[in-house]
């Protein structure tokens, strides 16, 4: 277990280092300068600005300085916001993203679970086909299309929910719903397949044969065992949520990390782009690692290397 954990950690660090390096050198290739109206600055001003942000040093040196700072969780200064550090920008933006992301995951998983269970228990019935269709719809329709249509119909036309902005809990409903569509679809499909498989297992037949009630069989044997592989969905779900927040926060004007990212791309705020990229990547890598480990803990049939 420990060896396995260490080797996963090693991979994680190598991947992170590659991402850091790639991001850093990608940024050097970017067109444009980080300063507003560089043609209006005098030679002297440009020099002093470059010096202030350390852009006058050779690239290799800049790279190592950047690495060193990273180790101290210092992501540098934003080019766009005078005097603000990247980590403080990320810190101030993370709340709304985390909130809608969490709400989407909780609601999406619950709804997906319900849909998938109905589907599996009423296999090949009208209900099954309906929920399969809903799941395909949720996987296929891009989240921003769904979000835009929802904003138009629920927000603008019917005015049931606030169409955008961030002024209280009711403002989180639509972004969370739009994000959760993908979660519902993924979880529902997954649970359906898993449950259908578990329903055919010998231990379910045994449980029925020894006279357990249908409810006990479903709850204690089928659902519990079908849930284990759902943990593996956490990786793809995180990516989906990340991708989703980029566009959905833009649509609903949520002051989150995704909105900041798209904003920074527009104004060439390199250090913020890099910081958020690293943040997203680390989050993703961390989740994948946790999933790997959790999966081993939950299902004893899967032995982790090093444990034998």
């Amino acid at each position, binding site marked *: 277990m420990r060896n396995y954990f260490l080797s996963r950690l090693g991979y994680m660090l190598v991947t992170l280092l590659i991402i850091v390096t790639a991001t850093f050198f990608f940024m050097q290739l970017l067109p444009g300068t980080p300063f507003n109206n560089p043609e209006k600055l005098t030679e002297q001003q440009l020099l002093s600005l470059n010096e202030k942000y350390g852009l006058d040093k050779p690239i290799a040196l800049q790279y190592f300085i950047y690495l060193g700072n990273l180790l101290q969780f210092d992501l540098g200064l934003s080019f766009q916001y005078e005097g603000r550090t990247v980590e403080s920008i990320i810190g101030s933006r993370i709340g709304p993203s985390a909130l809608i992301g969490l709400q989407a995951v909780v609601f999406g998983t619950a709804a997906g679970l319900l849909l998938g269970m109905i589907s599996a228990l009423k296999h090949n019935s009208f209900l099954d086909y309906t929920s399969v269709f809903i799941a395909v*719809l949720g996987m*296929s329709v891009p989240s*921003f*299309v769904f979000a835009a249509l929802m904003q138009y119909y629920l927000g*603008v036309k019917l005015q049931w929910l606030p169409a955008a902005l961030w002024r209280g809990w009711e403002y989180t409903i639509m972004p969370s719903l739009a994000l959760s569509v993908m979660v519902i679809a993924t979880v529902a499909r997954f649970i359906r397949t898993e449950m259908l498989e578990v329903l055919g297992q010998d231990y379910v037949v045994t449980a029925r044969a020894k006279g357990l009630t249908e409810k006990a069989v479903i709850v204690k044997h089928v659902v519990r065992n079908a849930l284990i592989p759902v943990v593996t969905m956490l990786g793809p779900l995180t990516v989906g949520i990340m991708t989703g927040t980029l*566009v959905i926060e833009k649509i609903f004007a949520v002051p989150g990390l995704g909105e900041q990212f*798209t904003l920074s*791309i527009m104004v060439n705020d390199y250090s913020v782009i890099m910081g958020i990229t690293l943040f997203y*990547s680390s989050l993703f*890598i961390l989740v994948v690692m946790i999933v790997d480990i959790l999966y081993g803990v939950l299902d004893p049939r899967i032995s982790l290397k090093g444990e034998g």
Partner: protein
Amino acid sequence: MGRKPNETPEIPDDMFTPASPGIVTKAETSAAPLTFWQEAWRRLRKNKGALAGLITIVFLIVVSLIGPLFNEYSYSQQDLVRSNLPPKIAGLEWLGFDGTRSSGENTYEERGITANAWFGTDEFGRDLWTRLWKATQVSLFIGVVAAFLDLLIGVVYGGISAFYGGRLDNVMQRIIEVLVGIPNLIVIILFILIFEPGILSIILAMIITGWVGMARVVRGQILQLKGQEFILAARTLGTSNGKLIWKHLFPNVMGPIIITVMFTIPSAIFFEAFLSFIGLGLQPPLASLGVLIEDGYQSMRFFSYKLIFPAIVISALMISFNLLADGLRDALDPKMRR
């Protein structure tokens, strides 16, 4: 005749009589045996969803190719007199194609315009019917080319990795493991930031990490096949490596490859639309479904038709591809079901 129990009794020649030619008949089979592909097609046809998806895809491809020829407008031609015209189709007024705005006024009557814009026009007076089908062409092109390049790289990489095995496989797998850890969204965005957004750079950005999935599928399949008897038999008979790969391994991996491609196309179409939506997509006057959705989103409050048509087409496209891919998976490889 004392004989041992296991010995066949001697049968004298005179017990044999020549068979009359009429008696010799072929073993009766109900029908010619089906090949793998015929069998798969038979199973696919039974899947209503997949069939509907296939039909929709073919329909959308055909319409996107011939649709722009139905009227005289080009996708980039601007005409400010015809700007922001709501959709109007003669004979379909009852369906909402009556040329009235959301506010209820009829733009055509106000401006005295007689030529209908079927799906309306955008703020520069570009005909949205033509633009929509042009955009569908572009999106499909991006999806298909990206999937094809993924396929090429993935098959070669995964094939080499699995076929030669050993240390080479080990190194190649470590590379993949690192690449898998990088969220492809991030790579795509960074790539587009460096190179000007265009059809080519979007495709390239998507294949940088996109081929990894295909490589893994191909490697897994070939590793499985490599140990089977028919490969051993072919090797024993002196088949060359090249022939082994093309004649024996490749046809057997075709199923999973096709399935993976069918899942790649919609995800490439999605990513293109996604990039366009956050402002990193194709530049006007070029149109893709993502560009149209972004344009439509900007003005949906007053001109909702600009959003709705491209939204319907992209959703139909994505649903169809996913249904077809699901169906193909069940038809080609029941074991891969998930």
